[in-house]
């Protein structure tokens, strides 16, 4: 899991997932 510091009450988390033969960095922004 990758995270960024919380700014403006918003948290961003991410992880790199393999989808078939390609690599997707899924980034989710969520409010605290």
């Amino acid at each position, binding site marked *: 899991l990758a995270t960024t510091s919380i700014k*403006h*009450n*918003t948290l961003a988390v*991410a992880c790199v997932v393999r*989808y*078939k*033969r*390609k*690599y*997707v*960095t*899924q*980034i*989710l*922004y*969520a*409010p605290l």
Partner: protein
Amino acid sequence: SPEQIRRDQRIGLEAIREFLQSKTSFDVLPVSYRVIVFETSLLVKRALNILLQNSIVSAPLWNSKTSRFAGLLTSNDFINVIQYYSQNPDQFQFIDNLTLNGLRDVEKAVGTTTSLETVSIHPFKPLYDACVKMIQSSARRIPLIDEDEDTHREIVVSVLTEYRILKFVSMNCKETKILLQPLHELNIGTMTNISAAKLETPVMEVIDLMIQKSISSVPIVDDQDKLINVYEAVDVLTLIKGGLYTDLTLSVGEALLKRSDDFEGVYTCTLNDSLFAISETIRKARVHRLFIVDDEGKLLGVLTLSDILKYILFS
């Protein structure tokens, strides 16, 4: 000879259609890429800043309560919010606290045709099918949705845009080289009833025009009808950045001063240009539409990526 050029055009179109049938949406995706997704409980103004920060204009939404994909956030949503504010200027607090969940209600309140349930397609379906779905829903982008093999929950694999598809064709389909017929022979694009504005036109009038005519750009012309600029739907993101709605009183010329300096400019072409020349331009630059002008630069019409995709698939 013109006859040879017409014959080549047909051969080229057939070849590109076969190419689109033979590839999947998955093939268009880079080996490594990112997908930025917003939880639907995020504030609209926060989502706007994150889009601008990442130089993107749209993002898929994720409803963590239902653990399902909840459609796409696009510039249309911000246009709806602006329209809602111009109709309800006393509702600033409501708008300031608006979350992405609330955008459907705003859409209903302003009465825009509720965007059809966001169309989507499986990544391994033919690319041709994704194009057909986009054209049918007049969407300019289509989410690629698969499901998790264990939990059967939806996965937003990516979002394909018309631009990315046409760029993929221009880079991988050598037959674009024989699409040499001039535009004036193709009956393509919009050449009549073009809604244009002047630099002094209030930006709200231009936004209303986009809503009424369901268009994503309004050309700006001078008194001699020469094209001097274009106001695009994505420009509204810079207009309300930081949750400020004070700039809605600007003229469109003033509003365009807020465009970021790395804007690549408006692309023009003439009726003598071919789809080969246009395809080459798409391959090298981020073109989202071309304005057709005459020798003196007077506005004649507009050619959108949807027009090009429609022509390639169905002409």
